[in-house]
């Protein structure tokens, strides 16, 4: 089976629209249960932390005034029993209301609408960079297995995955901003420049959609450094998986047969090796994208990138329950959607895989 050429895919059962619908309905149902479970876990964990949201959010003098503390607790529903608080939260959630953040005093959904697209934009850039570079270099390493290039790339990828994020971020910042002045120091746009009209919340995309070329260039300019730093860590992982995956396929019979037909090595790799080799890479890329989205806090902090990582950190520090819950739900949904997309991608890359 493992040695089967991709042509067998033509014989595989086709996914019918009804089958796809059933698959999506089942997965969405499971996802919904997961989201509710995550709200429960996040809610319990937040309440287990031995802290007082009023103490974390009010000043010392305000804390000394029982009327102010009472007003705060009342405003955020903290004066109700914990179980009641949870069910009120679920009821509001059902109506699309994620509550009001204790730290920003804004609707959590408004905060998330601002921060999530910023992180998605950063993570998308990073994942594109890491896939383009990681897959490319992984193929080269596999094709030149055992050669100095392969050794060099393997060492490089090991360094890529093992260097501390903050160190790389600071080094890149120092070199490309402070020493060379190639890139701006941080933020999403130059100081005082207004963001493009909100469509997706991703400035590069919105600027293009509005036809604001100079704004697009400004946004991209700010995206490059943090995006590359974030991508560096995934490059190593993608490179190693690609190399291993290509090596598994590159000497199979059908590949040798393709070579024997006189095809060039690059054509063989492109047409007969890459497609089966991409399956595990899709999994890695999917998981990496999820972790990029939820693990950007250090890069966001150093590059002043107002994304969800920084928001999550501040929410945790301030025991901001509605914000913590909102972030947990969003991250959970992102993981669920990514896993779903990866599964769908599997069936596209290898039609033998049946969606159930």
């Amino acid at each position, binding site marked *: 089976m493992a040695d089967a050429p991709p042509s067998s895919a033509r014989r595989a059962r086709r996914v019918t629209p009804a089958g796809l619908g059933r698959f999506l309905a089942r997965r969405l149902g499971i996802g919904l249960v997961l989201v509710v479970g995550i709200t429960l876990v996040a809610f319990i964990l937040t309440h287990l*932390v*031995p*802290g*007082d949201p009023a*103490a*974390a959010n*009010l*000043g*010392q*003098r*305000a*804390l*000394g*005034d029982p009327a*102010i503390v009472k007003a705060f607790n009342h*405003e955020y529903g903290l004066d109700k029993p914990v179980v009641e608080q949870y069910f009120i939260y679920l009821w509001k959630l059902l109506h699309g209301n994620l509550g009001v953040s204790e*730290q*920003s*005093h*804004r609707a959590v959904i408004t905060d998330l609408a*601002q921060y999530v697209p910023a992180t998605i934009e950063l993570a998308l850039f990073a994942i594109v*960079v890491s896939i*383009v*570079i990681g897959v*490319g270099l992984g193929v*080269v390493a596999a*094709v030149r297995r055992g050669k100095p290039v392969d050794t060099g790339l393997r060492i490089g990828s090991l360094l890529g995955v093992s260097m501390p994020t903050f160190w790389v971020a600071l080094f890149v*910042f*120092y070199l490309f901003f*402070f020493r060379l*002045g*190639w*890139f*701006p*120091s*941080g*933020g*999403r746009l*130059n*100081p*005082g*420049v*207004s963001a493009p009209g909100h469509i997706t919340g991703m400035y590069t995309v919105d600027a293009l959609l509005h036809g604001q070329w*100079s704004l697009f*260039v400004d946004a*991209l*300019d700010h995206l*490059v450094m943090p995006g*590359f730093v974030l991508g560096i860590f995934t490059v190593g992982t993608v490179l190693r998986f690609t190399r291993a995956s290509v090596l598994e396929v590159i000497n199979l019979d059908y590949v040798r047969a393709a070579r024997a037909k006189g095809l060039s*090595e*690059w054509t*063989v*790799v*492109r047409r007969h090796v890459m497609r089966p080799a991409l399956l595990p890479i899709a999994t890695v890329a999917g998981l990496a994208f999820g972790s990029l989205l939820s693990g950007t806090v250090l890069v966001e902090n*150093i590059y*002043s990138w*107002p994304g969800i990582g920084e*928001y999550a950190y501040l929410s945790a*520090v*301030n025991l901001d329950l509605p914000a913590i819950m909102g972030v947990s739900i969003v991250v959970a949904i992102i993981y669920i959607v990514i896993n779903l997309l990866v599964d769908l991608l599997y069936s596209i890359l290898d039609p033998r895989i049946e969606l159930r």
Partner: protein
Amino acid sequence: MKKQAAGGLAALMSASALVVGMAGGAHAATSRASAGRTLVIDNSFELVTADPGHMFEPTGELVDNGLYDTLVTFNGGNFKKVVPDLATSFQTLDNAKKFIFHLNPKARFSDGSHVTSADVVWSLKRLVNLKGNPSFLLAGENISASGPETVVMTSAAPNPGLPYILPNPATGILNEKVVKAHGGTDAANASTKDKAENWLNQHSAGSGPYVLKSFSTTSQVVMTANPRYWGPKPAYSTVVLRNVTAAVQKLDVQRGVNEIAVDLSPAQVTGMTGVQVKKGPSPNIFFLFANQNPKISKITTNKYFKLALRYGVDYGSLLQLAGSGAVQTPGVVPTVFLGALPASEAAKFDLKKAQSYLAKSGLGHPSLQLTYPTGITVNGVTFDDLAARVQQELDAVGMKITLQPQSIQVALQTYRGGQEALGLWEWGPDYPDPSDYLVFAPGNLVGLRAGWTASDAPAIATLAKKASETTGIAARQAVFEKYQRALNSYGPYVPLIQPAQVVVGTKSLKNLQANGLWFVDLRNLG
């Protein structure tokens, strides 16, 4: 074949490089969008809101100081003297139970309308009734208008500190009509009925030199010059506050891409050249306290233990840690405020004396925990570093101190509950008046956290009450000095240091000063 594979890779890499090159090249071509002079200030944001009625964070003070006028204010970094802002003058009557403020008839909001006493009354009542963080500032004040340009504030008890409270940007005056139209109310139930905060986070409705253009609590705040400002024309057409870490601030200002960095520590500015470095003591004080509640600790209630603590801390070493510009605080009132003790009265490190007091205590080599909030930095000094230094010094005295770092939420809970035997904390001023430091008196806010009730020290409690009611600068200076001497002799506190307030700016800036309340004075900068 290998050449082709390598060629493909080269294409991929080239594409990546092209993206970088395109953006990198663009960086040189793009610049700040706004025309005219732009001032960019780097700050590690502590920002929740721009609504003065809710605002009580350092970055918020900087923002609202630019957007809103207050009745009176401070000039530059001099916190000992209030100067006119919206009020040209004020009278203190009835032993500081009554104040009358006379408004400047020239004052205009950014929409061109007059600033009237009704706006002042409405804004200040809203502040109180919102029951937010800054509401305590005017608690107990009865605010009314006695004419279109006259505001009267009365209180049951004397409030001589009121003129020093009013420069706080939280007492900024709003355009009543405009804010009401966007959900604002000053009613008694404003804490639940007022809906103007979101609007005030997108627009401003004040009479200050700048108006709000955009506001983000995590990235940047943009203010533009108020074209109808009734005072001297603002020096900048645009002021941008950017949220960046201190390390990045240093590189930004050193490279000259941004004008001001406000969160650098003395260590970070050492050796910086080509920039202006302004520093002086901040009004934030670090202090130790030994809990006086015997149920919490039998050790810290021992009077000789407290004396050993006072003489056992090497203040010079702490100042070295805090860096140039920091000073030892002689009492709980910072040296930059009215009522501070002279530096000559600061405690002096004397190891032998400390050891002798510890021996007298009969406690042997007492073991106890020093609790503090971990990960918190004040003016470049972290609680963790300071606690470690104190531990080392008290170890030399003969005390076995175990460090008990706690997350701020947990630490605040134990601190508020009076559960900490030995604590390391900081007090930042709510307003620059010694009356803010009456919280340290027995039976008051911090006193109770240190297990010190009014019945433990009735004479000091009475002295604190007297200090709260005394009027006149000289008399207040004298009574607050007496109050602090009593705290130093009999209280549970060991005042430690005021770290340095550092501001770094580019050479071209004029009138740059470190400001302990709102970092820099936007109104004075040129």
